[in-house]
């Protein structure tokens, strides 16, 4: 049978696109397979109504027929346990309204670890899904001397099988040929043919898989001992923790130190752009909108791109290497104590750079409540946008002196603010779990994959994809918010003969004055209250906003610091710091939470609880400081 027979003999009409979906266990190299098949012709989006990532790409078949490839979330079974797995099941069974059933499903299997994928294959066979199996990482299996009776396996699972090495693009042409052949003989699936297997049926399936495994796979002559030996170190109660701390330290160092020159470059680039636009446009509101609103606003978010790229580089490298699962194992007890899943440390760590990629990274958590808890606490981690605010206030108010001979007081306060963020995040997670979702503790069941050398091309592609998603968001959601915030700060303009800064007369000024009585008890004056409104654009914008309300031209932060030190009391300054530890001063984060949770409920809850925490914290700090005579 050849692929040519599939093409409907309609003169002049292009043959229908062949729809292929990739299914497989986690860590089977499915995404590498997807990349090998589609190259750069891929598109990342979301499934309608859910926040599961939809990755689709395409390639041209041998006869010029278009083949679209859908990379489905990894799963162990069609009995879905998470939103991602629901998508996989529904697509495979053709149950999703927005997604026609695939013509052929490619079951991607790790050739060195077949047991669980055999059961998945049996499930698919039982429903009659037209499938092809790709025995991926066949090179590693060969190296281990693993003997797989492919013909027998193919008969048992009733699907053609091909050995592949996705990272080296080995076997891809043959796989495409098999797909085309299979499509020619495929009958459509009956979605009703599948129902959830019971425990008894699962056992039966396992037994069957076990029988096939015994019959078709001879145990490896040279089993992989490397993973075991490495695990002896990396999962060791002492050495493992030390390595983990080292990795985290390196990651931190990279995110902050390596990204700094790029961020400076990006900063000065946006400033230059703003200045250049300034010379082109006549003085007026249009210039203000473009340089102050759009360029400065979007620039203040895009400046995090280097950090995000470095962060995801680390995350993807560690994930592909197989270390992420180990780190989750080591941290599970700590995270579990706060009611979080071991995997939650990835998003929380990301949130130290910026809560936006952190919240995007919560997709690694399967359970809905675990994921929501992580999303809710992620903005409490000290993101790097808080650093300029902290730096400004600390350098203006905290004396540069030594404590106990070797500790720098300024550094100590800085560290304290970081610790406050971390501790409050874990505490809030604990409280949320205890109060709202007591009854729903997810079991921690995780396969620890064999260690593998990450494929550079694959890593690069995934990092670029993350960067693209972030930039897309900065160019759309964040851009429109920046324009609206600028509008609030620029209109209505100052009346002629006004003495105060223009922002004082704007909507933002009005809001600031309106909330001032509320913020009075925590020691905020009206300038601080007003600065909070443009500060919603991004936390560090508050620095510029304070400059605006105190009419300090340019970006002279040392002058601003001196001015603040003159006009604020120490108690107010400390209250401002406490406020910034907790307050939801970032419209972009709230927008991303809306996108990721697909509901307004969670951003609103987040806004309310963080504001309440910020208020209480600022109040306590202010009152204590006043009591100690710092008012």
């Amino acid at each position, binding site marked *: 049978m050849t692929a040519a027979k599939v093409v409907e003999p309609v003169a002049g009409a292009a043959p229908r696109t062949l729809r292929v979906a990739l299914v497989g266990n986690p860590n089977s190299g499915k995404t590498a397979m997807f990349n090998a098949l589609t190259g750069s012709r891929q598109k990342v989006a979301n499934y309608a109504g859910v926040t599961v990532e939809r990755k689709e790409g395409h390639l041209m078949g041998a006869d010029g027929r278009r083949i679209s490839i859908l990379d489905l979330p990894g799963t162990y079974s069609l009995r879905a346990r998470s939103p991602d797995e629901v998508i996989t099941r529904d697509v495979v069974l053709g149950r999703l309204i927005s997604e026609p059933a695939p013509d052929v499903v490619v079951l991607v299997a790790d050739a060195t670890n077949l047991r669980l994928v055999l059961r998945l294959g049996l499930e698919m066979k039982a429903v009659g899904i037209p499938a092809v199996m790709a025995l991926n990482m066949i090179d590693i299996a060969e190296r281990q001397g693993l003997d797989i009776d492919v013909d027998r396996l193919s008969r048992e699972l009733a699907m053609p099988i091909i050995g592949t090495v996705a990272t080296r693009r080995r076997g891809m042409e043959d796989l495409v040929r098999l797909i085309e052949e299979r499509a020619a003989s495929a009958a459509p699936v009956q979605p009703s043919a599948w129902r959830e*297997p019971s425990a008894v049926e*699962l056992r039966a399936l396992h037994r069957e898989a*076990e029988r096939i495994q015994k019959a078709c796979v001879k145990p490896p002559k040279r089993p992989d001992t490397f993973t075991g030996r490495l695990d002896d170190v990396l999962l060791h109660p002492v050495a493992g923790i030390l390595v983990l701390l080292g990795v985290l330290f390196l990651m931190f160092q990279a995110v902050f130190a390596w990204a700094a020159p790029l961020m400076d470059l990006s900063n000065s680039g946006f400033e230059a752009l703003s200045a250049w636009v300034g010379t082109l446009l006549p003085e007026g509101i249009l210039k203000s909108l473009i340089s102050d609103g759009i360029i400065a606003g979007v620039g203040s978010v895009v400046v995090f791109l280097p950090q995000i790229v470095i962060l995801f580089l680390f995350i993807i490298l560690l994930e592909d290497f197989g270390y992420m699962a180990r780190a989750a194992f080591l941290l599970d*007890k700590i995270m579990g104590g706060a009611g979080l899943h071991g995997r939650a440390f990835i998003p929380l760590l990301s949130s130290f750079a910026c809560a936006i990629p952190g919240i995007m990274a919560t997709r690694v958590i399967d359970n809905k409540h675990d994921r929501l808890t992580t999303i809710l606490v992620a903005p409490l981690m000290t993101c790097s946008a808080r650093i300029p605010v902290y730096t400004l206030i600390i350098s203006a108010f905290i004396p540069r002196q030594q404590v106990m001979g070797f500790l720098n007081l300024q550094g100590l306060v800085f560290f304290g603010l970081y610790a406050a963020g971390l501790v409050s995040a874990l505490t809030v997670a604990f409280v949320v779990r205890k109060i709202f979702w007591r009854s729903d*503790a997810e*079991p921690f069941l995780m396969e620890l994959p064999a260690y593998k050398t990450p494929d550079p091309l694959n890593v690069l592609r995934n990092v670029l994809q993350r960067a693209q998603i972030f930039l897309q968001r900065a160019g759309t959601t964040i851009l429109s918010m920046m324009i609206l915030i600028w509008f609030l700060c620029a209109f209505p303009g100052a009346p002629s003969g006004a003495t105060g800064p223009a922002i004082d007369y704007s909507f933002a000024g009005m809001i600031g004055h309106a909330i001032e009585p509320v913020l009075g008890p925590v020691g905020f004056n009206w300038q601080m209250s007003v600065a909070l409104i443009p500060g919603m654009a991004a936390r560090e914008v508050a620095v510029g906003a304070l400059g605006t309300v105190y009419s300090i031209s340019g970006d002279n932060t040392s002058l601003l610091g001196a001015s603040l030190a003159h006009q604020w009391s120490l108690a107010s300054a400390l209250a401002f710091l406490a406020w910034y530890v907790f307050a939801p001063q970032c419209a972009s984060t709230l927008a991303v939470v809306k996108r990721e949770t697909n509901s307004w409920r969670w951003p609103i809850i987040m806004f309310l609880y963080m504001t309440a925490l910020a208020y209480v914290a600022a109040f306590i700090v202010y009152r204590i400081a006043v009591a100690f005579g710092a008012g």
Partner: protein
Amino acid sequence: MDSVRRAADLDLELTPQPVFPAPTSLANGRRGFVGRISTVGAETAAAGGLAAPELERRLLEMGFVEGARVEIIHEGFIGKDPICVRLDDMRVAVRRRDVRGIMVQAGEP
């Protein structure tokens, strides 16, 4: 599927159960424990958790089935929890409380 199930049931009846030693819960195992799973069940964890049948199915899906060889190869550093288990030829990390219902027979038959 039906024929599969019948064959499996038959298999279960015919397999002689080893008589020694008494099965213990995998949750109590220490590092270095080697044995085989004699029964897979699930207890609903005291502090919430999944319903027992659901947990049982998840354990089965991860490969915790009767007859599988288990070896506890690593323990967490706080309270020796979670544990890393070599399950046939896979490595799986689990919390002790989730595997309370898995009974294991020590020794390598």
